[in-house]
């Protein structure tokens, strides 16, 4: 069933408390930046872990908040503070992936034809999916399809939004998502067999 567009960039509206906290951060009010960190770091760290992998995510979290500190003056209250931070974090994650070079360049390449999803036996092969198993399987995907899966299935972005964020065609985003789901299905099936 189609889902209404509901992601970190569209679901939140600015609140007075956001504008006030941003102002307190801008003026270095005691405790303000820590309040910002405590409120938003788990979500942003989750995004970074799933997009770039845990080891790089720890450094990237620092970059995200350092960038937020530098750019807080640009926050005008047009969106929720969490939305603004999420966009900042997503862009930094994408920049980081691009800096990895060759792997990322494959994102825009034509995907190789793969055989239809191998279904050992018949019917559904996945039972209840454990969150940790899914995170582990996600980490094994190539950058391109993992990024699209995270943005679409985890964060709720539409393909046209992903296309804009990543600079790829909507069709490429759809292909990458399909590829990611197939690979995850295979990885989780293998996991269940062990």
């Amino acid at each position, binding site marked *: *069933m*189609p*889902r209404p567009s509901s992601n970190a960039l569209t679901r939140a509206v600015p609140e007075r408390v956001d504008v006030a906290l941003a102002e307190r951060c801008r003026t*270095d009010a*005691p405790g303000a*930046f*820590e309040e910002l*960190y405590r409120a938003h*770091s*788990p*979500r942003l*760290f*989750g995004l970074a*872990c*799933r997009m770039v992998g845990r080891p790089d995510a*720890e450094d990237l*979290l*620092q970059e995200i*908040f*350092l960038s937020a*500190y*530098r750019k807080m003056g640009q926050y005008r209250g047009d969106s929720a503070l969490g939305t603004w931070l999420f966009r900042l974090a997503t862009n930094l994650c994408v920049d980081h992936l691009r800096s990895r070079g060759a792997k990322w360049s494959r994102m825009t390449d034509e995907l190789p034809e793969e055989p*239809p*999803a191998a*279904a050992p036996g*018949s*019917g*559904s*092969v*996945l039972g209840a*999916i454990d*969150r940790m198993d*899914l*995170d582990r399987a996600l980490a094994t995907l190539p950058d391109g399809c993992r990024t699209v*899966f995270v943005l679409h*299935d*985890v964060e*709720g972005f539409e*393909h046209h939004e992903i296309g804009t964020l990543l600079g790829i065609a909507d069709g490429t985003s*759809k292909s990458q*998502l*399909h590829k990611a*789901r197939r690979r*995850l*299905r295979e990885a*989780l099936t293998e996991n269940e067999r062990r």
Partner: protein
Amino acid sequence: MTTCEEIEPRLSEYVDGDVDASTRAGVAAHLASCERCAGVAVDFERLRSAASNLGPIAPPPGAWASIVARVEVESDAPRRSSAARATWPGLAAAAAIVLVAGGAYVVHQARQSAAAAAVATSAAAAPTSLNDELTQAMQHYDTAIADLQATATSGEHQLDPAVAATLKRNLGVIDDAIAESRTAMTVDPTSAAARDSLFDALQQKVTVLQDTVALITDAREPDSPARGSQR
């Protein structure tokens, strides 16, 4: 569309409701008669549902301290002058940088050694082992921190009380991270994560103390004629 080869590439879009009415009807008709493709569609639904429930992830305990240290450096930088850092507390800081650079080099060497231990045969005379290298690195840091701490403590009264309180609080956060890492290393002396976390926290403490000394220097010599003329 009737074959699995034709249907399968559309299953993701079908599950997302991202197909037109005629495609939807064609896929639905195929799924009604093909258990294998119907199973794939069910699994894609399950994956999508499980993914949407993946929640936030708590950052590691030392993450906030790392950010604080970098923000402190950034926020203080424009207020500092290179000349001020050439005065006596600045020289203490510079000496500490040399010590820490030595420590960082040794840490780097130790980390390299740990990574290569399984395959490398080193003819280096000293340090003789990874543990020696780590101990030596920690001594570098401890010496640098002790020197900087002494300078910072003696000049602390010259700082704005609010600034001093903030610095003290930040150092407390870093000390907690150092203590946590030391405990983790005691529990598992071979843990690379605990070792890296400890050295990162020690480096952060040095950075904050260096900033403290620079602020004291600024407060002590606000109108120094040497300001801006030395480098």
